[in-house]
């Protein structure tokens, strides 16, 4: 056994707190003075290491540690009792507040949004000349408003069923502006709106004669006779 391996084994034995060295190491140790010195220095190192660890691990405990923890626990207890008492009441109050406030906020938001759309999206109630409107209506009767595809949105507040008074249809911004303009014009001059409710004079359907097809090989006969 060489000295390097012996020293490795010596360190391992001391680290494992072995009572004796392995036989082969002991044989080498008996014959090698340098390894004997190494063993002694390692032994002292581990002794001082253990002593240092004991000093670190067995520090004197301050006598006020337990009373201090007692005091902090006593401070904690009333706070817990207070929380236990008021927590359900507080939770109920918050829930009630939410139940009342959320629909109100939702409704107010919808009102604001519709008012905003009516008032600020187009520049005021500027009346157009009646002749232009009539011409436009005659030449290009309004089609049914195009409805935007419905997107499912997660509801935050309680479900509110819309009434017929505040029914909303989602249309393009430009189309909405045109419709609003049209509605305002009709309000100002109701005669304009009559055109929408009168039956339009459409050109009569003309039946075009279709020539009869004659097939020479085809013989038409009642079903019973054919069988």
């Amino acid at each position, binding site marked *: 056994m060489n000295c390097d391996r012996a020293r490795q084994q010596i*360190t*391992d034995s*001391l*680290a*494992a*707190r072995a009572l004796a060295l392995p036989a082969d190491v002991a044989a080498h140790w008996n014959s090698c003075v340098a390894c004997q010195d190494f063993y002694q*220095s*390692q032994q*002292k*190192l*581990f*002794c*001082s*290491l*253990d*002593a*240092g*660890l*004991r*000093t*670190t*691990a*067995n*520090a004197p*405990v*301050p006598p006020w*540690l*337990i009373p*201090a*923890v*007692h005091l*902090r*626990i006593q401070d*904690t*207890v009333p706070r817990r009792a207070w929380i*236990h008492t008021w927590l359900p009441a507080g939770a109920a109050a918050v829930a009630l507040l939410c139940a009342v406030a959320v629909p109100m906020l939702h409704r107010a938001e919808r009102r604001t949004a519709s008012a905003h759309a009516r008032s600020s999206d187009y520049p005021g109630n500027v009346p157009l000349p009646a002749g232009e409107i009539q011409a436009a209506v005659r030449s290009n009767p309004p089609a049914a408003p195009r409805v935007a595809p419905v997107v499912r949105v997660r509801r935050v507040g309680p479900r509110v069923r819309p009434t017929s008074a505040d029914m909303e249809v989602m249309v393009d911004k430009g189309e909405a502006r045109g419709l609003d303009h049209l509605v305002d014009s009709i309000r100002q001059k109701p005669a304009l709106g009559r055109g929408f409710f009168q039956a339009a004079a459409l050109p009569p359907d003309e039946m075009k004669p279709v020539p009869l097809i004659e097939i020479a090989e085809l013989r038409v006969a009642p079903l019973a006779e054919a069988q």
Partner: protein
Amino acid sequence: MQELVLNPPGRALEGDEIRQAAETDVRREFELRLVECGPLAFRIAHGVLRNAADAEDIAQEALLRAYRKFDRLRDPRRFRAWLVRITFRLALDRWRSAKRREQREAAWSISELRPTPATAEEMAVSNEFQERLARAMEQLPGKFRLVLLLSAMEGYTTEEVSGMLGIPVGTVKSRLFFARKQLAEKLQ
């Protein structure tokens, strides 16, 4: 068949009183364990932090946390192991944050504070050795540090350390071996 239970005469206990009685029981049981395990918490914290004031702070915090969650502890016999883990984790957190702060504030001075190497004999009698030992321990993995500390505490055998940490005795011994070996290598 339905069982009928007769209430004893007198006023029945209200919900609050039952809860208060239960809290009192929990508190009494905790206080017994506090006296038993409080010093252990302090020593673990001191072993990690090497500062009595910080260690006391951490020990108090760990004991308070243990108190707050004591009623949720399913097996009260595991209290000591539980407290050891809480304290060690808190102490390590404190040590890491202190280390970060120290590095941030005075990185340049750390190398100057590093002690000069000396022989083992000289070091053993001086505080310098303690300082070097502490620095070497800081470089060990947490599981090695905890086993070293608990094994070095008076009154705890390897079997008790194994029970406290919930690991086999062989694992405690192997951790102890590697920790001691690494420490010796660092202190050479």
